[in-house]
């Protein structure tokens, strides 16, 4: 059988024999996948050159959601830009808030109270679960199973209700602000979260029965879209994409920020359980396990919160003018390393704002990954990168 991970030989006859076409050779044709295609996760357009069902070339075209967030960042003052970060990676808005807030805090040299940091950890890890739930659900959709998506939404809705209780919004939270978090947690919220986590862990096992260990799903994902360690580093892939390829690297552990060095949790890496290391199934599995690990961190953070000092927010001047300088802070977003690079000229606006969207970088490997795969595999590979087009295009 054809192994889609294998590059096609140059000689057309060899290729025909490999793909089983015998002496029937086919014309290649260009076909547009997107921008209105059901499984491009938004408005991504991939121009495919196909030989029958097999992709020989792929050119991703992005920019359909471009809103020039970086320009907005230059035009608005530091506090006002905060809500815009929600709109980049809208599935993990808390993480984006955090990345931005941490960059500005570093620029301004603000000290964040312990309590605020723990609340940040809790909310960010919960958001990681919520984001990976979407990744899980939509990956099921890509594979043709619609039910996991709705099951994932069932739990995600509960999480959104939790978020609504703490910050008032269900999607664009604007909760983590410069200097801490906007509100302290309401009464009884801790119990609700812990209760949810208990239920969630049971559901998590159901997901595995429903999709992860389904043989058809494994056949669709194992050995497909294999990213080697070298490629992974060369294309600067981060997050689950990188860990799926077997590289044991997590910003939370290896370049700790906030209080992540005080928690105990495992970092899942791809082991090639169902096929090759670095295939779609590995990336998917890393995300599944990360959900569980995030739950662990949340539980520990709640324990630490009882003895935490300080309030939920540090004192921040009303007019915010950091000194001249620049800094880059990268944090571990559900999709990889989210970095904000801010150049300050001492005024109340940023001189230059640059965002390293993890999806943007993760998507750039498509050009290399898709050739040799079948169209159905292309769908699975795009799904396994778990991109959010709002962040790719910013």
């Amino acid at each position, binding site marked *: 059988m054809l192994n889609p991970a294998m590059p096609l030989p140059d000689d057309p006859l060899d290729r025909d024999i490999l793909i089983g076409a015998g002496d029937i050779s086919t014309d290649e044709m260009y076909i547009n996948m997107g921008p209105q295609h059901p499984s491009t996760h938004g408005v991504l357009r991939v121009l495919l050159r196909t030989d029958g069902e097999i992709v020989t070339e792929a050119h991703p075209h992005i920019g359909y959601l471009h809103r020039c967030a970086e320009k907005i960042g230059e035009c*608005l003052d530091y*506090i*006002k*830009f*905060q*809500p*815009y970060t*929600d*709109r980049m990676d809208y599935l993990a808005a808390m993480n984006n808030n955090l990345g931005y807030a941490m960059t500005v805090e570093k620029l301004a040299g603000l000290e964040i109270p312990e309590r605020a940091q723990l609340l940040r950890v809790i909310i960010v890890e919960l958001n990681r679960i919520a984001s990976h739930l979407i990744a899980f659900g939509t990956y099921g959709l890509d594979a043709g199973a619609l*039910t996991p998506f709705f*099951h994932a939404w*069932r739990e995600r*809705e509960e999480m959104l209700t939790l978020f*609504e*209780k*703490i*910050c*008032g*919004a269900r999607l*664009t939270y*604007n909760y983590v602000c410069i200097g801490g978090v*906007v*509100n302290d947690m*309401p009464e009884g919220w801790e119990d609700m979260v812990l209760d949810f986590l208990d239920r969630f862990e049971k559901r998590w096992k*159901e997901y595995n*029965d*429903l*999709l992860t*260990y*389904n*043989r*058809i799903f494994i*056949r669709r994902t194992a050995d497909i879209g294999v990213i080697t360690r070298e490629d992974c580093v060369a294309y600067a892939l981060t997050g689950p994409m990188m860990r799926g390829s077997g590289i044991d690297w997590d910003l939370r552990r290896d370049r700790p920020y906030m209080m992540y060095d005080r928690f105990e949790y495992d970092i899942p890496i791809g082991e090639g359980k169902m096929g090759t290391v670095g295939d779609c199934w590995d990336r998917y599995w890393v995300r599944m396990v990360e959900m569980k690990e995030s739950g662990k961190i949340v539980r520990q953070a709640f324990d630490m919160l009882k003895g935490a000092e300080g309030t939920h927010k540090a004192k921040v001047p*009303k007019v915010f003018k950091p000194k001249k300088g620049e800094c880059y802070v990268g944090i571990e977003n559900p999709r990889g390393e989210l970095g904000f690079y801010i150049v300050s000229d001492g005024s109340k606006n940023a001189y230059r704002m640059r965002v390293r969207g993890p999806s943007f970088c993760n998507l750039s490997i498509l050009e290399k990954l898709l050739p040799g795969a079948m169209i159905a595999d292309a769908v699975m590979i795009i799904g396994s990168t778990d991109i959010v087009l709002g962040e790719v295009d910013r």
Partner: protein
Amino acid sequence: MVETFKDFGFAVKTAIKGMGITLKTFFEKPVTLQYPEERPEVDSRYRGIHFLEQEKCISCKVCALACPVDCIHIESELPEKGLYDWDRFDIDYGLCMFCELCCFPCPTNCIHMGKEFDFSRFSRMDLVRNMLTWEGVSPAQKKEVDGIAAEKAAKKAAAAEAKKKAAQDEPKDTQDEKKDGE
């Protein structure tokens, strides 16, 4: 060959396991809400459409300054009597992104995020909401407010009448004015 058959058997086994999950869900209670009839109870922190405690507002426009999308429009004259000499306090919900940044800097803590979330309208202009509802204002204040409003209305009417009269008296002049305006 044997591998293929084994694989097939494994596929059937896992498929049946998955079907067990869906069958279990089939007999569980649905989690959805019947939206227009059943409305979700939003939390007290919910960020819906604003409400303004008007008697507290001092028209300092800090909220409008804090707004990242400039959707709050406040126009007021310097108060002659009391604090209520408003022309407009509009929020354009076509622009508003419900970030709550307008509520934090308010010195009198008079603008809040409300609980209303269903605000779809047929026209964009309908999304501009006048916050001057005068709700929660005491009767005495209301009287004062009404008085000012009536006075203003009378003034406007008088001005309009005078204009009309002038227009009737000298129609040629108004035409010239128009030309000048252009």
